[in-house]
């Protein structure tokens, strides 16, 4: 038996690390992966609260988050591919025009 807030603090730690790597990393694929890390931290919080309030809807929301994350990964990686095709780089500092 452990306090619920430990799970929430673990979620906060993972989210903070995700934000930090989103800011620090310069590789566009790693930035995408840090978004995935943040979404995972939020999923942990959802599951913890679902367990706390004995509600199934928290777990259903996790499914929706997963679907959106998968869709985002597919579209985002397609954008990365087309950016790399025109710029020949993955560094976000050199991708500063909206034009592909």
């Amino acid at each position, binding site marked *: 038996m452990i306090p619920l807030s430990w799970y929430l603090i673990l979620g*906060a730690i993972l989210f903070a690390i995700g934000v930090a790597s989103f800011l620090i990393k310069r*590789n566009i*694929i790693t930035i995408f992966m840090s978004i995935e890390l943040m979404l995972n931290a939020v999923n942990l919080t959802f599951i913890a609260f*679902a367990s706390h309030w004995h509600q199934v809807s928290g777990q259903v929301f996790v*499914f929706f988050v*997963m679907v959106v994350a998968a869709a985002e990964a597919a579209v985002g*990686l397609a954008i990365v591919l*087309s950016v790399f095709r025109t710029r020949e780089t*993955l560094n976000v500092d050199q991708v500063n025009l909206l034009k592909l």
Partner: protein
Amino acid sequence: MLHTILFFIFAGICVAGALNFLLQSHPVNSALSLIVVMGSLALLFLLLGAEFVAAVQVIVYAGAVMVLFVFVIMLLNAGEEEHTRGNKVALLLGVPGLVVFFGLICWTLSSARLQFGQVQIGDFYVPTNDLGIALFREFLLPFEVTSILVLIAIMGAVVLARRERQ
């Protein structure tokens, strides 16, 4: 007692994987440590009684999404990332802000700890058919909307990744 031990083992693996994700400079190493984080998060989901979500976490996240990421990293032959000026600006401004943000969350959580109470293994267990009933009755409209979202994402990915004809 068992719950505490298991929680600390998996939470430790989780945080170690996330820190390794942050500190590695090669994208493949980052991707592999993210898979470690996702696997141990699946075990934490099991501790909270969400067995189907844990299975989906392993199959969809650690399986499909991360395989897609590793595939793109290898396809584009991404090497070590170089450090630039934007990197230093992010370090100088972002990290103190992040520490403040994290401290605020921890302070809020610890001041509300007594209202949250405790969780226990086996206290709340969701069989898969309960989850299915909730998904297809209560959340039927959001489910259909997400299916349209996935369809649009597939079409968008195909259109974006297609090679333009000259």
